[in-house]
């Protein structure tokens, strides 16, 4: 079959991009190879591990379970947009750093994007809420406890100093 190309326009972290893409290109691969914003990681590529989680119009989704062409006209947020331009960490990143919420870091972009949407919707979560929200992200290094601690600390920091 001849390749099926589509012109798309997406906004990623506030920057507009126009590209031509194959219909079969996954959104995760599009971000990594075409823009190229390689902060979004690719783990299982079938929706199980959560490493590729990004925000689509503010909602956490698995970018390996969407086609790039489906993102046409939508606003995406990725890990590259979290820190400030000068490199200062945002409160969720800072808490992960302080609580040793990562070791190898492979799953971290997906966890940070999942938690960005979660803490916005749930500013005062219980530990159990955090674990439920984290359930779609697999981490093989930390055993999760440090991530949960980091998220409780981040939630508190964000409540006391709103952005």
């Amino acid at each position, binding site marked *: 079959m001849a390749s099926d190309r589509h012109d798309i326009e997406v906004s990623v972290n506030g920057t507009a991009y126009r590209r031509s893409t194959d*219909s079969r290109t996954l959104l995760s691969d599009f971000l990594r190879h075409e823009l190229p914003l390689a902060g979004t990681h690719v783990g299982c590529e*079938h*929706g199980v591990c959560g490493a590729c989680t990004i925000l689509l119009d503010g909602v*956490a*989704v698995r970018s390996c379970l969407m086609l790039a062409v489906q993102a046409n006209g939508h606003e995406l947020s990725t890990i590259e947009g979290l820190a400030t331009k000068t490199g200062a960490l945002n409160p969720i990143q800072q808490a992960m750093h302080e609580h040793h919420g990562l070791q190898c870091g492979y799953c971290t972009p997906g966890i940070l994007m*999942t938690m960005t949407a979660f803490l916005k919707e749930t500013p005062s979560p219980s530990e159990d809420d955090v674990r*439920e929200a984290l*359930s779609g992200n697999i981490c093989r290094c930390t055993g999760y406890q440090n991530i949960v601690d980091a998220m409780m600390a981040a939630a508190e920091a964000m409540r006391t100093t709103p952005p």
Partner: protein
Amino acid sequence: MKPAPFKYVAASSLEHALSLKAEHGDEARFLAGGQSLIPTMNFRLARPSVLIDINGLADLAGVDRSDERGVRVGALTRYRDLERNSDFLKSCPLFADALPHIAHPQIRNRGTIGGNLSHADPASELPALAVAMQARMRIKSSTRERDVPASEFFMGLLTTDIAADEMLVEITYPAPRPRTGTCFQEVARRRGDFALAGVAAMVTLDQERRCSDVRLALCGVGETPVDASDALAGLVGKSCTDQAIDAVAAEVQGIIEPSGNVHATADYQRHIAGVLTRRTLHTALQRAGHGV
């Protein structure tokens, strides 16, 4: 990992989507939430030559409670939107129990009710809910439109009554009757995993608080959702004692045929089904008594 090549078309209207499906038949698939279809395409277990994206069809999404016959839910309504719709959860409280069990938040943000039911995974929660609640499926093609009861919709493993030129467009859940209580519970190895067994129970009491109707459907224990309501006939017209509930739970265990898998033997699945039948019936009865 990439899907095999295909032609992508974003449908501009329901008519457009249905005419494309009529033209391409089984070679074409509708793309709704994509949370089951895209992984199977990534694995190349599915290789549709045409993908008809229906995500732009806003008319297909949403909940309408204005119809006295029941609550109408558009096929493109996402789990996320049902979870956050307190009026809907009040009308259909089985969903309040069941939705949190469906995969993970990121999946629930994209996945749709119509996609779930059309996919017809027997371990999934919503097919069992549809059977327990006696939902009606509205199915449409370019040339015709029909209603199918949930009891006739699920025909086998990943197989429904939807023909190659048709789409499930809407599901109607009958309005709850007074003095009705419901409960859904399941057992899975980890949060978000498919259920080893799950049970949806619905109990209606009469004025004297005797059981006037009882419905029970299971997921994860057969090739389709299993309607076990007939096995509960012994409860109707009586006040449900613990012994009566134990007896029907044993009957339910007798009629299901779980296959067993790497996570659980068939015996263990049957055991769980019995335990969950008792628990869900007790809770549904309690809720019916409290008018919840």
